[in-house]
């Protein structure tokens, strides 16, 4: 089969282009003449400015050589070998001209790609823009900031009925666009799974199957999936290889790890996820996070969990949203305003 590609780029230089070229040449001549008359640095400075102008007008390097030759021919009696030598120079510069033209076309392609990414970013923001539910008896705070344009972190809140809501937090390996694509898959799967009102351990079981079948073996997803009963204030949850969160016991003024066993999603077919249950007393806190929060480099060393607990301790009196906001700000300062990984933190307090 014959395949073909046609391209017609009629570069019929309009009169404007022609005039412009003459104008540039005249300017070049003026500067060159003055320079040869010995005015020195001023002319060199003007030449530099003219160079910028040439670039703006998309004048190729070989054309400047041609301009130089013509100007010199007009001004001095050039020995034949000197004149001829310009042909060789031109021939070499044409390759540079080609690279210059390619650079220009790649730049415009880059702009186009960037605007496509912008659209994708907006789409993702719509996917993730879930409002933190306002509930009686429970105060919730959330901060989720992507390291790059698109986030590989995922979170989800769903209110099932008067006394039950679900919360999920996940982290997809890698960052940027691949992680974001995988995140959308998780999002759609979760939307379906929630309709069935499964338990956290069942949700992870099904999700593991979906992830395992649909993503590259080199990628995986860690997740914590939980269900909070507003009547009994019991939190049931299951974990798939996710960064442990914290449980704060107000009475003891102590932070505990929100531990849980379970392999990351997408690693092992048919993996099982045990369910854990804890009861919250008044003032107790649940803190869920992604590893972008904890795996922070601060200068030469990494943030320790004990340090993080220290910072959390200092905030326990505040509202859930303030705790999340202040921690984000605090950690950003400590890591010199660099955010190498997506950062998501959910704070839940029994009022």
């Amino acid at each position, binding site marked *: 089969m014959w395949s*073909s*590609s*046609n391209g*017609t780029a009629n570069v*019929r230089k309009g009169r404007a282009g022609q005039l412009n070229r003459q104008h540039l040449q005249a300017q070049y001549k003026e500067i060159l003449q003055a320079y040869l008359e010995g005015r020195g640095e001023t002319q060199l400075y003007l030449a530099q400015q003219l160079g910028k102008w040439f670039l703006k007008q998309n004048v190729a390097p070989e054309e400047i050589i041609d301009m130089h030759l013509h100007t010199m021919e007009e001004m001095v009696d050039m020995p034949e070998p000197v004149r001829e030598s310009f042909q060789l120079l031109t021939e070499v510069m044409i390759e540079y001209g080609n690279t210059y033209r390619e650079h220009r076309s790649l730049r415009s392609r880059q702009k186009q790609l960037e605007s496509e990414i912008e659209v994708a970013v907006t789409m993702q923001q719509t996917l993730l823009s879930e409002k933190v539910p306002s509930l009686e008896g429970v105060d919730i705070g959330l901060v989720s900031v992507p390291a790059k344009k698109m986030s590989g972190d995922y979170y989800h809140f769903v209110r099932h009925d008067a006394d039950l809501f679900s919360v999920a937090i996940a982290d997809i390996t890698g960052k940027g666009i691949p992680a974001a694509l995988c995140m959308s898959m998780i999002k759609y799967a979760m939307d379906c799974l929630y309709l069935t009102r499964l338990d956290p351990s069942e949700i992870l079981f099904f999700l593991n199957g979906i992830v395992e079948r649909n993503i590259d073996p080199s990628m995986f997803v860690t997740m914590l999936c939980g269900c909070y009963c507003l009547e009994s204030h019991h939190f049931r949850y299951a974990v798939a290889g996710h960064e442990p969160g914290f449980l704060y016991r107000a009475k003891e003024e102590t932070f505990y790890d929100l531990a849980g066993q379970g392999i990351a999603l997408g690693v092992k077919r048919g993996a099982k996820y045990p369910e854990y249950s804890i009861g919250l007393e008044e003032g107790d806190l649940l803190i869920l996070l992604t590893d972008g929060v904890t795996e922070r480099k601060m200068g030469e060393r990494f943030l320790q969990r004990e340090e993080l607990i220290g910072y959390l301790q200092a905030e326990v009196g505040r509202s859930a949203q303030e705790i999340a906001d202040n921690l984000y700000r605090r950690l950003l300062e400590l890591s010199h305003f660099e955010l190498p990984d997506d950062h998501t933190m959910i704070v839940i307090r029994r009022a």
Partner: protein
Amino acid sequence: MTVPITIEIRTEQDIVLARQEGRNLSKQLGFGNIVQSRIATAISELARNIFQYAGAGTITIETVKEDGRVGVRIVAEDHGPGIRDIRRAMEDGFSTSGGLGAGLPGVRRMMDEFSIESSVDHGTRVVIIKWNS
């Protein structure tokens, strides 16, 4: 009006000859110095591709007239292996030289008209035109 000139491409010397013919004709047609060199470079790239990938083929150079303007048309033709994925071959950065210098996308940018047809196992035909405006 000149008759078309066809140059058989088998050796690197033939590439030089094709360049020379292209330059001569564009000089006759009154193209500026830079455009002459660009035409020679375009011929060079097409002839090199024939030499490298098809082993043998032809470059045909002729004058074209249309709507009161004059131009030079170059047809590069071979019966070599063809190009499997033309879209990729036309992409910047795809050439073996990593997209530095001319290559097919560069030729397309230097010329006013460019068309390529290729079929696996049957060969490749590239037609380019540069108008003297």
